[in-house]
């Protein structure tokens, strides 16, 4: 399924790798479907969900979903949510958590022994993919996650070269790299990415769907550029961009590139 938000981020935690490891704790980021409930009535939920899953049965098969309760008029008791989870399961999807939404949700999550997924804030800003209300949105639309609040955190500064095989991720903020990003390295941010050394690796801005995020670099040799999941690989760098200071931005679904200073955008 073309869920462009699945950037497949995996960050290896610094572990004492010199020793044999029983477990490896990794940070992984995946896109997740949100099911926003407008009602807790199992009957109407099951009717709608089975209708939707019928349109794309494989897409929903054992798909993890996150319940967003923010549209419910009042916080339902745990029992009610349990039966909702059961009907969702019968429709083929598996509830893995509740979208973050305050202490009431936290308590409910504890009762249900489900995690609260903080990253997927219950939000009214974006349209969730599956609305348990009359809707005819195509079921295959990519899951959307709210953009991080701008200016919440200062930019993450990286002064060391980012070597092949390394990843640097600036969560909820911009990333500024003052050294080289080598071929085979990955730099990503939920905000903008600025690279002041040669950029030879892969770069992802707006990793959480911020379509206003941009990539700026001093010497463009990137292998891949992605903004909010829209990406382009460079098998051959356009000669007019090679080694130049370049910025990339998203115009609609189109990834645009221009030399810095040569765009009025």
């Amino acid at each position, binding site marked *: 399924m073309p869920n462009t938000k699945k950037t497949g981020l995996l960050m290896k935690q*610094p572990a*004492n*790798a*010199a*020793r044999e490891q029983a477990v490896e704790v990794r940070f992984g980021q995946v896109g997740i479907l949100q099911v926003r409930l407008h009602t807790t009535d199992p009957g109407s939920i099951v009717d709608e969900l089975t209708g939707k899953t019928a349109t794309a049965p494989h897409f929903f098969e054992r798909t993890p979903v996150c319940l967003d309760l923010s549209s419910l008029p009042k916080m339902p008791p745990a029992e009610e949510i349990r039966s909702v989870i059961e009907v969702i399961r019968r429709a083929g999807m598996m509830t893995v958590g509740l979208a973050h939404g305050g202490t009431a949700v936290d308590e409910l999550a504890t009762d249900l022994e489900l995690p609260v997924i903080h990253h997927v804030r219950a939000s009214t800003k974006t349209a969730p993919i599956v609305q348990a209300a009359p809707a005819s949105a195509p079921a295959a639309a990519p899951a959307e996650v709210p953009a991080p609040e701008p200016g919440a955190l200062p930019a993450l500064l990286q002064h*060391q*070269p*980012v*070597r*092949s*095989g*390394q990843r640097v991720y600036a969560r909820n903020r911009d990333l500024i790299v003052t*050294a*080289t990003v*080598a*071929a*085979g*390295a990955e730099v990503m941010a939920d905000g903008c990415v600025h690279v002041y*050394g*040669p950029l*030879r690796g892969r770069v992802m801005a707006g990793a959480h769907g911020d379509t206003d995020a941009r990539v700026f670099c001093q010497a463009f040799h990137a292998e891949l550029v992605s903004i909010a999941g829209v990406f382009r690989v460079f098998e051959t760098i356009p000669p007019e961009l090679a080694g130049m200071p370049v910025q990339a931005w998203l115009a609609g679904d189109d990834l645009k590139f221009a030399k810095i200073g040569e765009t009025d955008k």
Partner: protein
Amino acid sequence: MTEIIVVTSGKGGVGKTTTSASIACGLARRGKKVAVIDFDIGLRNLDLIMGCERRVVYDFVNVIQGECTLKQALIKDKRLETLFVLAASQTRDKDALSSDGVRRVFDELTTEGFDFIIADSPAGIEKGAHLAMYFADRAVVVVNPEVSSVRDSDRILGLLSSKTQRAEKGNGQVKEHLLLTRYSPKRVATGEMMSVGDVKEILGLDVVGVVPESPDVLAASNSGTPVILNEDSDVSRAYEDAVSRLLGETLPLRFIDEPKKGFFARMFGG
């Protein structure tokens, strides 16, 4: 103070063992007490290059597993008084190494008053390579002037800055040096090979030595004499320079320009 230098590269066949042997000899020639250790368990080579393969009784794995003492396993070089070789095991695999075991061996060498420990890393980024670099103070990253070697070295440099004891304990950086081997100025001039400048720019590191491509290396390996001991060879001079630079001297790089045809070359058709 014992300094641990790992000789590593990521890619195989670029000249790690040749470099380890020559650097170890070069340091020992300057009166330093040096132990050179083969971390390539299962594919031991260093003893061949050092010419002591018939004198290996106990190896690194035996020491780590407590089957002999370190003294029993250290092979004293016949040419240089202060040089010792610790061979790898040919019959075990890399899992025979343990972090604690390596640490114990290094600690013991430190107490024995060694000036330098040269850790000859295996290729790859698996356990053997990891343990070879883990305790290092410095790293000599051996790179051939070609793209795959450069990329693998970049990966190794990434690991050096994150997966070493120094990095994990926040105890400063492992000091990294770049050593180019199999360098052919002629092929650089024709554009077939990356230049020193290209490699330096991509990896963002200073070059501690440039070793020219030469048949002397193969001849030295086959005869079990580290190439640095072949005084007639440019390779030897290049390694001598590299050793001096490792010890803090500043020397201009040699053998990076295409040689002008001199008297001998003209006489013998170069």
